[in-house]
């Protein structure tokens, strides 16, 4: 007969965690003091809900605004992630590359954090509307972690596996092989950072501060608790003992939270000497450059990623997006086609290929691509697809179709700013000033960081003689896009007019 422990181990190895837990439970029923089965069960339960700490972070409003950790509140340009549109250092102009609702240029790949951006003020953060594809941040990151850590609340017929309240941490900390398993269980499965920290702190002491793994875990706990300086100290100490990728990446994350992107990049580059061509490091660097709107560097580093990992979807998609927005749709098509060949099949891809084909004048393909995109789109994606089809219609001069497409976009997502704006322009062409005004207004309200509706509102009000509204709108437009020449001209014109009065 096979030993039940062997079966459990084999199941664990094959990632059948549920069956592994069952086997371990049976062993524990027979012998409640079987440490090996206990440890294996804890490991299996942890793996069921494991998320790599490096990937899992999304900042909430509270973290971002009541942020007293960043070094400089008003950083010099090019040294901070906080300025949404820093066109001055060679970032893309919002006139060319659209911005998300939080005012950041759209990235080519959705990651945690790309949607949210960093709002400048509390007012702005709260004003960002909550729509179907909200850009509004979650209120607090801790709220999200609460949701992540609900695994412990799954109903176990005989109570939780490990009762944290009754653990004697000192006893476990002295046994490294049990303590490490227990720590991971508390941290990932129970999501109880405080108890995890207590265990880790005692264990690192028991290991005479010679085990970098414990320092890393203490740092992780500090990081979760928002004590970044302490976390940095732990990570650095761990790095002194042993340079590991995890430690480097976590330390980089701390630097990002302190709003020190350049220091993070320097750290990653230094680590690249130790781990040449490591994909994770290269991707991390590219993401930082992407966050700082440095398109050239982003593309360069993503290309480095592709050299060491030719099938990295994030890199391909980001490079393709950058090519598209720098007016090279033909190259973007090739990259997107590569993604299709690799087996991706989703709305976004078809939509993007459709757009690229349109701008590269492959008109025959365009409609087919959009047709497919519409066929497989869910409601929230549908709005964007229709919006893009409306561009197609505008491009071929079919205003009526464009109008209908935009209406469909608005129907699918009633918070689609751009669709409202364009609908207003079309209404204006039809001669319905009142409706155009209303639509401009709702567009401007939905996304205060897009400059187009503000500018349009300003021009419209100015031509109607409502100079006061025009002035207030054009101010908002200039604020959203400081280098917009037309807005500035209008502002000067209005100021001259007011001065002459």
């Amino acid at each position: 007969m096979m030993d039940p422990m062997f079966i459990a181990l084999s199941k664990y190895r094959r990632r059948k965690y549920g069956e592994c837990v069952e086997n371990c439970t049976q062993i524990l029923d027979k012998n409640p003091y079987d440490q090996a089965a206990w440890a294996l069960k804890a490991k299996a339960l942890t793996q069921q809900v494991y998320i790599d700490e490096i990937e899992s972070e999304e900042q909430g409003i509270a973290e971002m605004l009541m942020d007293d950790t960043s070094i400089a509140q008003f950083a010099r340009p090019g040294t901070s992630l906080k300025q949404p549109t820093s066109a001055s250092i060679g970032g893309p102009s919002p006139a060319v590359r659209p911005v998300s609702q939080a005012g950041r240029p759209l990235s080519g790949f959705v990651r945690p954090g790309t949607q949210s951006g960093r709002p400048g003020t509390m007012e702005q953060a709260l004003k960002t509307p909550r729509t179907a594809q909200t850009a509004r941040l979650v209120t607090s990151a801790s709220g999200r972690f609460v949701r992540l850590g609900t695994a412990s609340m799954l109903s176990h017929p005989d109570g939780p596996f490990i009762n944290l309240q009754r653990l004697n941490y000192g006893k476990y900390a002295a046994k490294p092989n049990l303590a490490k398993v227990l720590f991971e269980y508390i941290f990932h499965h129970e999501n109880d950072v405080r108890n995890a920290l207590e265990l880790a702190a005692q264990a690192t002491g028991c290991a005479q501060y010679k085990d970098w793994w414990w320092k890393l875990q203490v740092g992780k706990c500090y990081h979760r608790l928002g004590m970044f300086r302490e976390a940095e100290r732990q990570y650095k100490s761990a790095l002194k003992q042993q340079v590991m990728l995890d430690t480097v990446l976590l330390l980089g994350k701390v630097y990002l939270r302190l709003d020190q992107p350049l220091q993070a990049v320097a750290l990653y580059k230094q680590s690249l000497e130790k781990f040449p061509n490591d994909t994770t490091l290269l991707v991390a660097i590219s993401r930082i450059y992407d966050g700082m709107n440095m398109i050239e560097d982003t593309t360069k580093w993503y290309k480095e990623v592709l050299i060491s990992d030719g099938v990295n979807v994030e890199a391909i998609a980001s490079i393709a997006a950058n090519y598209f927005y720098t007016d090279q749709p033909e190259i973007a098509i090739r990259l997107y086609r590569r993604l299709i060949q690799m087996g991706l099949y989703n709305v976004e891809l078809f939509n993007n290929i459709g757009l690229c084909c349109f701008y590269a004048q492959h008109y025959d393909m365009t409609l087919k691509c959009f047709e497919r995109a519409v066929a497989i789109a869910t409601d929230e994606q549908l709005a964007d697809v229709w919006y893009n089809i409306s561009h197609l219609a505008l491009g071929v001069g079919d205003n009526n179709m464009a109008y209908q497409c935009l209406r469909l976009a608005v129907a699918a997502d009633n918070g689609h700013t751009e669709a409202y704006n364009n609908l207003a322009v079309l209404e204006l062409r039809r001669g319905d000033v009142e409706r155009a005004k209303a639509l401009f207004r709702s567009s401007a309200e939905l996304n205060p960081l897009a400059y187009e509706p503000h500018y349009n509102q300003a021009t419209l009000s100015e031509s109607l003689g409502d100079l006061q509204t025009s002035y207030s709108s054009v101010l908002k437009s200039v604020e959203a896009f400081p280098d917009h020449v037309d807005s500035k001209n209008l502002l000067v014109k209005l100021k001259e007019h007011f001065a002459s009065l």
Partner: protein
Amino acid sequence: MSLFQVQEWWRCELSDVEECGSGSMCVANIDNSPDGIDKVIVGSYNGILHVYAPTKDVGKNPGQDVVLEINLSDPILQVLAGKFVSVSTDLHLAILHPRLLSVYQVTRSVDAGDQGCQYKMSKLYQHKLERSAANMIHGPFGGVKDQDFICVQSLDGALSIFEHESFTFTRFLPGFLLPGPLAYNVHTDSYITASSSYFLESYSYQVLAVASDADSKEDSQSVYTGKKIKADWTFNLGSYAFDVSVVNLQDRGPLIMVLCEHSLLCLESSGELVFMKKFEFAVSCFKCFPSPDGSKVHTILCTHSGQLQIYEQSKLLWAAKSGSLPVHLEIGRFLGTSGIIVMVDEGCRASCGYLGTMPTLFTLPRSMHRETDMARIDHELSSLNEKIQQQQQSNNGEIVSSKKDKEDLKIIFSVPSVLDKKSVAGQHVKINGDDLPSVTGQVILKVNRRITDIQVTTPVAPPLCSTIGSLHIQAVSEFEHSPSIRPSFFLNSYELPSTLEQELIVYYKPPSETPQVLSCFARLPLLLVAQPCGPIKKLEHKVTLESNKPCINLMELFPDFLCADSGPNCIGMQYFYGAKATILTSKSSNRYRIQCEEYVGLWLITDELVHRIHQKDGDVKISNEEQPSLEEYARLIDQHFRLRQMNEDLNMMMEQRARQYRTIQRRLLTRFKDKTPHSLNCLDTLLEGTHTQLLALADAVEEHKENMRRCSSHLSSASRLLVLLTRLWKDLSPEEEEDLASILHLAQTDNFSSSSGWEEIVDSSLTVLLKTTLSRSDGSMPTQPGSGILEIPQDTVKVKKHLAIFMDRLAKGSRLNVGIRRGDHPSKSSRTETNVSNPINRRKDSTTLNSQRVDAELDLYKEISDSSPPLPTDAGIRYPPQKMTQQLMNGDHDVDYETPLDERIRSMDVTDNVNSHFDDDITDILS
């Protein structure tokens, strides 16, 4: 994600369901055939051993490639091929069972005939294991040449070394918890294993062997004694290791490759990190081998997403999709081709394959759209366009069509004239004596479009009670069944309500508009407060009404109040609280007489009578010849006023007592706080006394409030009667009646909260009225709307006097509605004060039925916009690789004026005369 896929070259067919795991396969030339072709040996946990010799033409003869298949009837944990016999250098097969290690010889014998060859397996030797085995390794331990020894790791951490037929020694690993992977490094002659504390440990064979000093008995596998075993070196992996393997590079010696749960590490044989690679995916198995030039290490990984990836150090060389999810991976040489990848999945199905440039056969799902008849599509498009155009014209292109003009809500509120069969009153209030009757009405809300936050309230006159005080409904839409509410009404004590007109108020919120209020009235049956009784000829208080037509038969008029003594000219009833009343009609003249034991009881019956007569015959004109008597009314006012004064006194006294109580408390406190104790000076007795007084006063106030409420109700009844009689007397128009009602402040209830009482409000209203509309000097006197502050008057003389003057003036022929109407009338302000609802939004709804209109218009855009999904809440958990490339889709944002619209359209725009100045603007900006 990969471009290519693994080309399958051979695979075995299995009929039974078997299970196996890591280590269940080995690839070796196990029969030592001279051509050097490898065989695939697979052992399953079910105890069946398969040996295959993969051949190309599997399709023709499926059984041909199966060389051997034996059921060993004991689970096979691991198979290994090595030189396990001391006398030869041939390969033999070692099989690890849970408690047994056996070594077999596999031989091939060529038959004489043309039947092919035959394979045999014979057991050479076996060792019984005392501990459950986990895994094993083989190698030339101790530097022995051309021979392999076996080391078995047990589940509880003992390493047992077997040198061929003889058992050598057993050692326990220190700090053991879970069995980790095991590897043997030939160069340093050491075992490498990963411990549960995430350390990679290297134990030298020498150290293990030397530690055994008390090995007296040869075959004892359970020796505990020995020197403490110490690892040569350890390396902190930081993660649980799945597998370890040692690769010998020609250039730089051996490298140790460790597969962890989420990473791959490469170490020198001395334990220094060379490189590491993090994975975003889960790896099921790996195989390392030196690169052809011997300078770098190559790794084949198999991921749980079904991908085969080949790395040179940490750089990805090749990625291919594999058909199955293998648990073990080997590289073998078959039919003269080396480098064939052999995989076995957990169902024991082995397969061989090679990497080719065959692309992944991912075919897009066929789109639903088929080319159809162009003419038909054109026709459909034009008809749809027409519809859209019509729609746009009809609703003026509003994206959300509005139904503002239509009524959102219709209330149907009806109360039957019959009582409930079984009274619900007993369930809600506890009254001693008989059950009071109840009546159940019905409220139906008919909506034309979705409304939300509906609140239905029934404000009742005090002794009356309703089963629903206030009811909240989340939302009602036109598609749902209209909600039906059934409120019941009943008396909660033996008293008299001031009115039987029941109001129903509905607050609701139409979409995107300000909240609205609707109210409607229904009449509760008289049976709710009175019961039939024999008529009595003479009663103290009476009212006489005249009619322009002969008296109607009372038995027809009040069929619900018939009893033995009643006749066509007289009918009697008794209120539940005791007072009796009688209605008499005169046989000769057209007169009705209502009489009652108490003055306040007259009102409900008179009202009911007038109401029923009007219902019976609309043309009947009822009038009252004589001026309504103010005598009883004045008495009620006095009573009410007295009660109010008493209330004031009580409140005053309570305030004073409370102050006294506080003072005593303060005194006591200072006394208690004092360091040197003093006597309490009877302050405690005083405190207790005051407390008792306070409580007694509070009880009195409570009781008083109840009296007050009852008196107010009576006053209200009397006022209503006065208004009714005045109307009948002077034949007032409805507006005048309404004004009079507001002057007399009908709905006044016990408003303890408001500072101004009934007397002063009525008095000030009357004063203004007398000074303005009813003034003798034809309204030329300037209006002085009182002093502005309403205070409780000294006595009721003034108000009674004013009332008398008011009646006088009316008697002399003055009308109410002459000059000022609804302007700065002070009575107006008092009225809005007591009205519950905002008069602007208020619409009175008749209780009659009104059929609901069905809106059958086609509304294309609206339907679409209605189906838009509910807004999700905060962003949920996102795993980065799942969402990709979303962003480009927002395309080009600025269609604003800078949109490159072509010339044709712009010229069309110019023809639009109305807004031509915009086009100028557009060209401006374009330039």
